[in-house]
């Protein structure tokens, strides 16, 4: 009987957002439900409420005591959710899902409706990732189109159809030349043309310059203002946080609908503002937001944090898939870089999700080039064996550049975090934008968008290209003219500018990713090296390492500088993010050819080695460290001789705060809750024996106590709190809390080596483990203790671990 009151809904207005069934509130619950089906707000995620869909509600109500002593705890509102900035317990959530699944399977035979329900439950994962893929593809297309339009707005406008960007605007006017030369296009009007009716001369230049800066400042101010006003969580790249969240951490509101909206709008404006940042990293965050929001349509995922992370992994894959038009690269990125728990089922779903997203994006065709990325290029020439040497050289250079970049950026971010600079986020953005715009405009390679620059660097010279980079003196295009040398000089300056501005940019309080700037830096380096190699081959074709197969008449085209640019880009990006497999796959999906896998692999590997040798971690891990997120890196080894007994809390067994299974009163329990701040309590048989019974979370206990106080009559402070099955009558009536007790906590003995413990935490995704000695409880090791221990081993400050 006592169990039933927990499920019956009596009015509980003092706790936030408990669903209640007094007449008025029934309507409210219903409306909440409708709203959830409609937009599935992230309020649910922020306010730990239980407004799931009706099916789940009825499901819970029909099974109040069906599953004794197991994970069936759904009927107390809020149980199974977590507090903000806490770590989730994978084992517990997976057990909850298993119970749910078993329950649905058992009911399957009862009626036809139940059969349909179970079918819906079975395919809901696929359905969810399908929806995520569709929405992600659409959002990515909107962002792509909006970005290219707004970027061109800095230069001018298409007065007859203002929604067209420069390329599209010019298309219909230059049917005579079929050449997208921006200089000769009658439809497109530069601001200087509109203002001074001339496109040439110093005055026009100054007007264009001023307009460029003004638009950049406007976009940046809007982005920074919107981020500050509506969704501060939308700032930054998001990948370190997604990584932490996928490893089992809760940041409420980080994947909400406002974050999604502001990040999408903000990234368009930031890229258009000409800041040295890219939209690819934020795309992962945007896709994860979509995954989170859509997972609320399916209670199986929306209400179970561990299950939700399966959808988020798939969404992250879709994010990279649309960012680079590389579905397989996206799946591998999710597997290699962001995901923590990645079973085969998630792999297939990620694959499907990435596929759907890429399909939607390419069917919308946002760039008009039938590819989902701006810098898609195709090479046909084979590479020579000796070229491996420059490729590995590029890898080494890339590793060095990446290390310099990471070190400086982290230093600057730390400075921002601790100094007065952090007080002026909007001013910082504006100042940086102004400086970037002023310095970028004079150099044509920095004036254009970074994606365009990358495309230019990657592409080969042919008859139609009229850039200085393709100013070759002979018709075979291998002897450089003066234009190429000027272009190289300009590119070197662009490189320095990109490096410096990106160091200061990554981490400002607007959405910003680092894929594109890294690719640009690497691309510039690679292109320069490529041109140098080409000139070497053209001038001295008889050098021994060319092996008479390059540079001689008939073999002029043996060296493609564009390919070098691509390898260099991969090397720098590989050094910055320490991705390997996924990066190579992304790059070859970009070029549409498998022929260049070996050069890419060589460069990426060299870059990773150099990077690992010079600096310990990649950019994302460095930012996780900087912020002190509770992320247990599965890449590092720990070689130490400590035992579980040295790390567990408390150090002295008598300070251990425990609950007893049948001898504590309600008052005792509440005093314990008030006096301690632990997030969970072990339950023992008695204080004398300390034999372990189970583990109960603080949050669950609090919710259950408050729920009981409101629903059970005659509950006195001296009523016993029971975690056992006691049938005999006791007065006053006891409070039975067995259903919130976890009867299968993971335990270890005090002699377990710490390596094993850390491994268990990583592989099982534990939140805490109980330490026993001779079967008696000694202490607890939480994830926080593990993180502190690792910091201590690394000679870092253990107090920088902030979160639970």
């Amino acid at each position, binding site marked *: 009987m006592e169990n039933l009151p927990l499920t019956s809904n009596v009015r509980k207005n003092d706790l936030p957002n408990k669903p209640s069934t007094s007449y008025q509130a029934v309507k409210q619950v219903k409306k909440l439900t409708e709203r959830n089906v409609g937009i599935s707000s992230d309020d649910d995620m922020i306010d730990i409420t239980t407004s799931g869909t009706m099916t789940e509600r009825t499901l819970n109500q029909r099974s109040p005591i069906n599953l004794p002593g197991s994970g069936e705890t759904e009927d107390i509102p809020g149980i199974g959710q977590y507090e903000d900035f806490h770590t989730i317990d994978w084992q517990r959530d997976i057990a909850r899902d298993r119970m749910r699944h078993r329950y649905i399977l058992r009911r399957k035979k009862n009626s036809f409706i139940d059969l349909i329900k179970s079918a819906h439950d079975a395919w809901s994962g696929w359905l969810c990732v399908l929806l995520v893929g569709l929405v992600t593809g659409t959002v990515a297309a909107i962002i792509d189109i909006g970005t290219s339009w707004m970027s061109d707005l800095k230069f001018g406008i298409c007065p007859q159809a203002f929604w067209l960007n420069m390329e599209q605007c010019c298309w*219909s006017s230059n049917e005579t030349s079929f050449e997208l030369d921006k200089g000769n296009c009658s439809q497109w009007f530069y601001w200087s043309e509109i203002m001074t009716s001339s496109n040439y001369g110093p005055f026009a230049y100054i007007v264009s310059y001023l307009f460029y800066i003004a638009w950049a400042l406007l976009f940046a101010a809007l982005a920074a203002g919107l981020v500050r*006003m509506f969704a501060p969580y939308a700032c930054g790249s998001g990948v370190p946080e997604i990584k932490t969240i996928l490893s089992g951490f809760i940041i409420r509101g980080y994947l909400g609908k406002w974050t999604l909206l502001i990040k999408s709008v903000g990234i368009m404006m930031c890229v258009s503002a000409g800041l040295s940042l890219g939209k690819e990293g934020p795309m992962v965050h945007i896709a994860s937001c979509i995954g989170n929001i859509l997972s609320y349509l399916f209670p199986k995922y929306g209400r179970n944090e561990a299950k939700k992370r399966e959808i988020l992994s798939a969404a992250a894959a879709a994010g990279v898939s649309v960012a680079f038009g590389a579905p397989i690269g996206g799946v591998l990125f999710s597997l290699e870089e962001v995901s923590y728990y990645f079973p085969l089922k998630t792999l297939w779903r990620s694959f499907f999700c990435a596929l759907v997203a890429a399909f939607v994006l390419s069917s919308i065709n946002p760039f008009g080039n039938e590819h989902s990325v701006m810098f898609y290029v195709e090479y046909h020439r084979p590479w020579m064996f000796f070229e491996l040497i420059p490729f590995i050289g590029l890898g080494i250079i890339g590793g060095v550049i990446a290390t310099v970049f990471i070190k400086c950026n982290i230093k600057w971010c730390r400075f921002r975090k601790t100094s007065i600079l*952090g007080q002026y986020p909007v001013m910082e953005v504006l100042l940086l934008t102004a400086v970037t715009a002023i310095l970028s405009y004079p150099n044509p390679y920095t004036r254009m968008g970074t994606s365009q620059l990358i495309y230019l660097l990657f592409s080969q010279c042919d008859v139609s290209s009229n850039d200085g980079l393709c100013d070759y003196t002979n018709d075979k295009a291998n002897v450089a003219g003066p234009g190429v040398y000027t272009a190289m000089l300009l590119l070197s300056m662009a490189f320095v500018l990109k490096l410096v501005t990106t160091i200061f940019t990554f981490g400002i309080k607007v959405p910003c990713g680092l894929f594109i700037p890294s690719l640009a830096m690497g691309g510039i380096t690679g292109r320069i090296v490529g041109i140098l190699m080409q000139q070497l081959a053209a001038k001295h074709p008889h050098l021994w390492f060319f092996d008479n197969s390059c540079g001689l008449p008939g073999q002029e085209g043996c060296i493609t500088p564009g390919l070098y640019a691509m390898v260099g880009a991969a090397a720098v990006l590989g050094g910055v993010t320490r991705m390997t497999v996924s990066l190579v796959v992304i790059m070859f999906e970009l070029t549409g050819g498998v022929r260049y896998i070996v050069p890419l692999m060589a460069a990426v590997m060299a870059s990773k080695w150099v990077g690992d040798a010079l600096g310990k971690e990649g950019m994302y891990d460095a930012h996780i460290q900087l912020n002190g997120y509770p992320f247990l890196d599965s890449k590092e080894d720990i070689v130490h001789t400590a035992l579980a007994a040295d790390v567990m809390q408390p150090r002295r067994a008598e300070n251990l705060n425990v609950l007893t299974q049948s001898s504590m009163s309600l008052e005792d329990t509440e005093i314990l809750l008030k006096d301690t701040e632990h997030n969970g309590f072990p339950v023992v048989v008695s204080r004398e024996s300390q034999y372990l019974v189970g583990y109960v979370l603080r949050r669950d206990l609090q919710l259950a106590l408050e729920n009981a106080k409101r629903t059970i009559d005659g509950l006195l402070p001296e009523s016993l709190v029971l975690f056992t099955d006691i049938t005999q009558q006791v007065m006053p009536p006891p409070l039975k809390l067995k259903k919130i007790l976890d009867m299968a906590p993971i335990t270890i003995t005090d002699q377990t080596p710490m390596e094993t413990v850390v491994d268990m935490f990583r592989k099982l995704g534990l939140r805490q483990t109980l330490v026993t000695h001779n079967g008696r409880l000694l202490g607890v090791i939480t994830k926080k203790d593990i993180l502190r221990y690792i910091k201590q081993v690394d000679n870092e400050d253990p107090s920088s671990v902030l979160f639970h």
Partner: protein
Amino acid sequence: MVKIPVLVGVLSLITMLKAESYEDARCKSNVLPSNDCNGVSLPIIGEVNNTKKELCHDALVLMRVETHTMKVVVLIVLCVISCLVMYMFFLLCLEPMIRRRKLVGAYVEHTNEEDEAPPAVSLNARRGSDPMVSTANSSNVLNRFGHQQDKWKKQVKEQRKNIYDRHTILN
């Protein structure tokens, strides 16, 4: 081969009607199959025949771009941005004014609350005690919307504190 004059005709028509023909340009050119590129006489710099074919093919690819999508998307983006900006200015400028006016009508003591409690909470409390709002049962939807908005504001305030003041995350 017959289609070349058609292409030329279409293109010249487009240039004549260019003011309203951006979409038409793409639609009409779609009729052309891309294998007709061989015969198209294009005044371009390249002499090599297959380069010409390549360029022509590029142009035909471009023709297929649906500028209609672009129009819709850009308009949506503009709408969203202007809505957000207006809402931002509303929250920044108008709302403090409205609140101040309300406060003048309400108790004087309420103004002191803001020192200790976070403003969003006190706003919430004030709204609850405000006779204007609590009696207006008819505006139930509006009320709940206001409640939602307050809750959201509180969350954003919390996020702002985490990022801009405490610098605990997202540095």
